[in-house]
């Protein structure tokens, strides 16, 4: 990729991949949204930011392209500082009632060289999970979070799936998965059909900053047919739709000047899948942007980042947290001839757990309509 931010060094003249983005998510959470409102809530909450600190010393680094082997690479990669399993999706019932969901498992290294312990509880890593359910008909957003140590299989990820407690996704994206999640307010039970894997960046090695050496390993399964049931408020809804699955691991960090980002993943009605994002500097202006489009066969193309337009059109203020988020965006990707408006299906899809951010279902209107997910941090 030769596209570059004009004001950056040549070394940085490569597009960020989605992997970068995902790495940024966690780092951003730490830097920007990390400390929850008011008092520090919990040790469990405090641990994650600690793990997300910029220091990657002692951990394995994603420096060279690697040969991905499956199913082994579905499992966790101890030795790297950060890793996650990221599922989002737009679903609807036969009557057209729409739901969006997010099930994310993060793994964080707490220590690059965990001590040898006699106790099975001894560990050098932790897992945490965020789940969200957006109910478009009632415009209600439900979320929950969990923490566990990487020990005694309380939480983990192997070639058969990933889990934390009884929240579990068994199987792999290329062989199909079963998702079972039960929170206080809702529960999800989905069958996720297999789909094509797409290696992001340069054969799965993606650079994530202008500075050299900050890379991650990354692949995705952007379009997975999904059906199952959602239990909410004592009612059960049979749903169908598409999910989007991201996998990434790395040990690197963000540049300091970056304070937040906007990330968009859209299943276009034409069968292709569009991912684009921008990183914002402290003054709110774009620091960096990237986009990539892929199809159901695994074919993909990186797009010219300089030709991407992402501009807030309408803002929404969260009464609960007091923060403002853009919930309508003008979107244009010149290379695709794409021009339209991205709209949150409803405004309040804000995670208000230990980390505060906005992640929810969106519709793309315009030249290339579609449905997808938008993630916004640092507002």
């Amino acid at each position: 990729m030769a596209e570059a931010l004009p004001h950056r060094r040549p070394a940085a003249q490569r597009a960020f991949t989605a992997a970068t983005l995902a790495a940024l998510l966690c780092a951003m959470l730490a830097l920007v949204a990390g400390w929850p409102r008011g008092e520090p809530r919990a040790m469990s909450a405090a641990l994650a930011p600690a793990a997300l600190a910029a220091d990657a010393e002692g951990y394995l680094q994603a420096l060279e392209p690697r040969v991905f082997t499956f199913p082994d690479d579905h499992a966790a990669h101890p030795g790297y500082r950060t890793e996650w399993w990221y599922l989002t999706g737009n679903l609807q019932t036969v009557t057209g009632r729409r739901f969006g969901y997010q099930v994310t498992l993060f793994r964080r290294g707490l220590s690059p060289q965990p001590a040898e312990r006699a106790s099975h509880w001894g560990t050098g890593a932790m897992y945490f999970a965020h789940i969200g359910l957006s109910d478009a008909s009632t415009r209600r957003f439900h979320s929950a979070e969990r923490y566990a140590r990487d020990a005694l299989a309380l939480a983990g990820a192997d070639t058969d799936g990933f889990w934390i407690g009884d929240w579990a996704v068994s199987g792999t994206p290329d062989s199909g998965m079963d998702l079972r999640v039960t929170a206080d307010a809702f529960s999800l039970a989905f069958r996720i059909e297999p789909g094509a894997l797409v290696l992001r960046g340069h054969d799965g090695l993606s650079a994530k900053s202008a500075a050299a050496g900050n890379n991650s390993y990354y692949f995705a399964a952007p379009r997975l047919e999904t059906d199952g049931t959602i239990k909410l408020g004592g009612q059960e809804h049979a749903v169908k739709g598409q999910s989007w699955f991201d996998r990434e691991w790395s040990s690197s960090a963000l540049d300091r000047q970056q304070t937040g980002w906007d990330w968009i993943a859209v299943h276009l009605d034409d069968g292709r899948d569009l991912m684009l994002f921008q990183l914002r500097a402290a003054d709110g202006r774009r620091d960096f942007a990237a986009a990539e489009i892929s199809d159901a066969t695994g074919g993909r193309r990186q797009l010219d980042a300089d030709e991407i337009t992402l501009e807030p059109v309408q803002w929404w203020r969260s009464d609960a947290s007091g923060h403002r988020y853009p919930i309508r965006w003008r979107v244009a990707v010149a290379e695709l001839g794409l021009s339209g408006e991205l709209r949150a299906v409803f405004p309040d899809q804000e995670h208000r757990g230990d980390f505060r951010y906005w992640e929810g279902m969106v519709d793309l209107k315009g030249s290339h309509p579609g449905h997808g997910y938008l993630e916004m941090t640092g507002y």
Partner: protein
Amino acid sequence: MNLLLRALWRWHARHPVLLAVTVLGAALGAASVIAIDLANASSRRAFDHAVRGLTGQATHQIHAGTVGIDEQWYVDLQRGRGGVLAAPVVRGQLRLHDGAPLELFGIDPFAEATVRPAIDAALGSAEHLITEPGAVAAGADLVARRGWQLGDTISVRSGQDVHQLRLRAVLEPRDELTTVALRDVLICDIATAQETLGLLGRLSRIDLVMEPSARLEPPPGAVLRPASSQRAQLADMTAAFHLNLTALSLLALGVAAFLVYNALGFALLQRRGIIARLRAVGATPGQIATALLAETALLGLAASAIGIAIGWVLGGVLLEQIGTTISDLYLARDVARVELGLASVGKALATGLGVALVAGAVPIIEAWRVTPREQLQRAGPQRNWSLALFGVALVLALVAVVLLQIDERSIALAFVATGVALAAGACAVPLVLRAWCGLGAALFSRLGRPLATMIWRAPAQGLRRSGVAAAALSLAVAAALGVGIMVASFRGTLIDWLDATLGADIYASAGAGLTSEDRPLQQAFIDAVRAAPEVSAVTLRRDTTVHGREHSYRAIVVDPSRPQLPPLRAGTLETVWPRFIGDDAVVVSEQLAWRRGLGLGDTIALQTEHGWHEFSVVAITADFAGDRGLLYWHATTFARHFVLPPADGLAAELSADADVDVVCARLARHPAAEGLALRSQRALRTASLQVFDRTFLVTEALRVIAAAVAVLSVVSAIAALAVERRSALALLRARGATPGQVWALGMGECGVLGLFCGVIAVPAGLGLAALLTLVINRRSFGWTLNLDPQPGQWLPAVLTALIAALIAGLVPTWRAARATPAEAMRDG
């Protein structure tokens, strides 16, 4: 101050010593109550907070059976079942290098937020705790007390093992509850706790937040209990202990009340003239009574204020003792400092004021009846109340007997009965004193010794005064004697029990040997003992916990090869033994039998590895290892139903010709004996008695206070008597008695009174001891104690009273003797 009050009060100002003694006596009485109340409340609060603070928001707890909960059970719970908020706990006792106990509380920080938010918040960002073996966190209070710095290595002993822990976080709890809970606790990751405490693969407890309707089947051998039950059990265990201390402090207060009564009564008698004149001038009885009431209240408040000051200091000292005792008997925790709350101050003021007003009531009522006519005419002869009082004494004694019969389990009634009995004794004193003096006077009169006759008649003449003084002194000496006899009897019973129980020659345990917090012995050490040529038999002991439906029980599991049990209260060794090793039988200690109302043939349902099982009680034993009682099993029986935990204690019998100390010393040098308490039978016996003596230190302290109040009351009473006797003695001087004769006469009177008090205190003390030993202790703790009358303590008691009376009389008598007849008569 108004004129009326001033007119009455200035009399006190003229007798500062009497006033000081009165106030000090009342203050001491109040101080003892305040001190015990403070110490009790503080220790209760400390222990309650300790339990509650570490329970957090948990609604239920799963308590481990004999060997802890398999950690895999918890993992399965987490992975198999949604919606259960659960936090695992691995906890245990550590000792610092100086022997101070600390609790190691191992948690999974990731599970804390929902169960113990306060601890979780205090922990903050402490990832070192998880990743670093041996990393611990401690409350700022503990860190400051110990002078630790962040990063310091803390050397601790867990059973036989020494571990180096590292202080990686200092916690600043935001609420008081958590602060208290963390007072003597090291928080660590569950992995560190397992490694330090040697509990790999095991959990001590699982704390749960569950809906009341939720059902959860606990793992084998464990029980699911409401979180509140742990506190309730602790409160239940220590209630009798606290009540006993309170009752003893009330005894001191009772003696103090007598003192105040005596002093105020005397003050009234002295001021009858003033009062009569005031009445003649036109003061109404109500005005007089109001002024006296104000004066009494003032005195009470002063006593309270001083009492609070003394009580606070004393409470701190006692709290340490009470804390140690509770640690010895119940659970090993250090106790927080004394907290002087508003409630305590209020209680203290009420105590001092209450005592003063109650004690002052009779004199005030008498003052009400003073007529101005006394001004114009001499008062008629004094009414003789001693016979009527004796009647009251008989009625009270009857009431006490009836009270004891009403409910043979009620501790409170037993204390009330004891109080009533003491009151009965006090009421009987005047008549007995009159008889005593009458006898003495008659004797010396017949012998033709007029001076001696005078000496003996004096107390009977001023019976109103001397009766009260004698009652106060006798009561105090009797209380001191009674408590002394009780303690000695208890100690004697304990020694008998130790001698009967400690049948082996060498004992080894990895803990204090007296609590259930012991750690396993190393197998290598057990093997070494078995291999020693002098050792003829080895018995292993396992100290563990089993769970019934309502209560958990301490269980002692032993494996003697030949018939051997602690002394039996019910059942005989011959009949019990076969069932003890063969049947599903259990032996129950008498405290437990008393507490739970168990008798021979009753059954106890317990949660075993294979579900609920009924065990029948085949014998009841004497036991003095703590007061909550325990169950005894033979290891063969126990192992059929429970997982046999590793042995934590060992008793070895040596061949007859072996030298115990030599073998003991040799075994102690064995590498696997590191950190063990390895003691000869003699040493263990001594150590046990030391714990006993420590337990009764508080009792001793209260005894000393009661005695101090008694001495003060005698000083006050004798001083009052001396003032009254001054004119009589002056008359003697006028009639030609030398100062020496007058001095002898005065001292003789004091001696007669003191001797009387000492003599009468002996039967009274014996009665009190009998009540304390046979009734109160039985009802409080379930112990059957042998009452040993301790004749050796009698003479000292008599001498105490005699000497106290003589010392008290020294100064006033000397003054009376020294005074010229003229000035003495004018003063009178």
